[in-house]
């Protein structure tokens, strides 16, 4: 059985004309890697279903110089953040589970949120 073999460089602009661009990342998994999924000798090392995605992202070459050194251009992030298509918060473990991050799904407006902020004691020596 052969696995999908596609051109990893093939990024498609799905919604042109000012709307947020969505890249379709293709990926491939060569035969050796595919076999390692079920081979008892290598299976444990492969267990980590993220590997195809990791590979795809690297191969797509969408960033240069290593992760985290190139922020998305500000215009893009502004456009997206103003957009209404995407739910803005999610169960991101790096903040929610590691740093005391809280889900604030449905704050109707800034005033309501600040009202909440005012409700809770600031702790010794500080205001919000």
């Amino acid at each position: 059985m052969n696995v999908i073999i596609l051109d990893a460089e093939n990024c498609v602009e799905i919604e042109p004309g000012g709307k947020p661009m969505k890249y379709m990342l293709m990926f491939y998994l060569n035969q050796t890697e595919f076999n390692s999924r079920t081979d008892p000798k290598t299976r444990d090392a492969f267990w980590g279903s993220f590997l195809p995605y990791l590979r795809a992202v690297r191969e797509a070459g969408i960033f240069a110089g290593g992760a985290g050194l190139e922020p998305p251009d500000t215009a893009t992030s502004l456009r997206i953040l103003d957009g209404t298509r995407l739910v803005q918060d999610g169960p991101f473990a790096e903040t929610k589970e590691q740093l005391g991050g809280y889900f604030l799904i449905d704050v109707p407006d800034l005033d309501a949120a600040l009202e909440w902020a005012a409700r809770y004691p600031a702790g010794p020596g500080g205001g919000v």
Partner: protein
Amino acid sequence: MTETHVAVEQAARDSWGRLLAFLSARSGDVAAAEDALADAFQAALETWPRRGVPSKPEAWLLVAARRKLIDAARHRKVHEEATPALIAITDVAQQMADSAETFPDERLKLLFVCAHPAIDLNSRTPLMLQVVLGLDAARIASAFLVKPSAMGQRLTRAKTKIRVTGLRFELPGASDLPGRLDAVLEAIYAAYGSGWDDVAGADNRRKGLAKEAIDLGKLLLQLMPAEPEVQGLLALMLHCEARREARRSDRGAYVPLSEQDVVRWSSAMIEEAERLLENAAQFGRIGHFQLEAAIQSVHAHRAQSGQTDWESIAVMYEALVRIAPTMGALVSRAAAVAETRGAETAFQLLKEIPIQSVETYQPYWALAAHLLKRMQRFDDAKSAYTRAMGLCEDSGMREFLRQKAAELN
């Protein structure tokens, strides 16, 4: 009488969503279908004790609901348009009574209607929960911190929109499908988020909906088995859910991910999530839900390797912020970069995010505080901790942040 109640409850659990979906699809009117179905269940409670529980409860309920729909249509003086649809219901009910056949499962169409572009963004999740899972408005309201009356109005408006606009109960065409499916997935994702912090069920005001979100995800998977983003979303939710028991200590204290006891993680859920993610990878169509799930998979891998592969996490966040640059993704990416490139670099990334977007986004402040602390900017850290505390309602979380802030002294 008790036997009837049990039978009716069972029918409601098993069939409400499917019955409502079918009746809605045929009548184009979710609200009328709900009323008719509720009346049908009421009639069952009254009739079955006398006549016995029917051998095909669904067929019985369908016929009863149809009768109510006709009565309602007559009352509203809606004639010709309603009749063909209602006849169709009768035919189906008849077939069901005569054979082992059951009626078509229209829940997929119902899910797509709930997330239709014409439906208000913050009505989609509540609508799905109510009409597909049968949750009551009060429960949904409490999960989203909205007054029950306000939620009730929101739901009514959405259902009126469906009827008045004449939204079609049909699957989107091939070119529309990715966007429309993403809207369905986003609505389920939002439901999952509402269930996050209420680990022990302690806060009665905010009973979470994590289980219901996963139920919706599993239903969608059953109805659309060949969509990788569907699998990605379910994998993501299962990975998060797998760690629920580890997030709080026995005394209710917040336990950070890096300190969680992996023995408390559900290996069954993790394995199911991993299978889904591997399966999704076969399709070769990465999307933002698969990427989020893949990031979760790296975290889960700590149970195998004893370490967290932050480099892989950071790489995948690079992709995520390009295809789905939400506040959550941008802030979390900075958190990952803090582990691979240090606090200064991460803080620069945080500062790239427009401040007005994150005024009330608590995780931003929690991360800022953490980074400022690492950079030894203690006064700024203290302010950020205070702000993060002020923006959260969970006492366990505030206590955690308070302790972190206290360490600055």
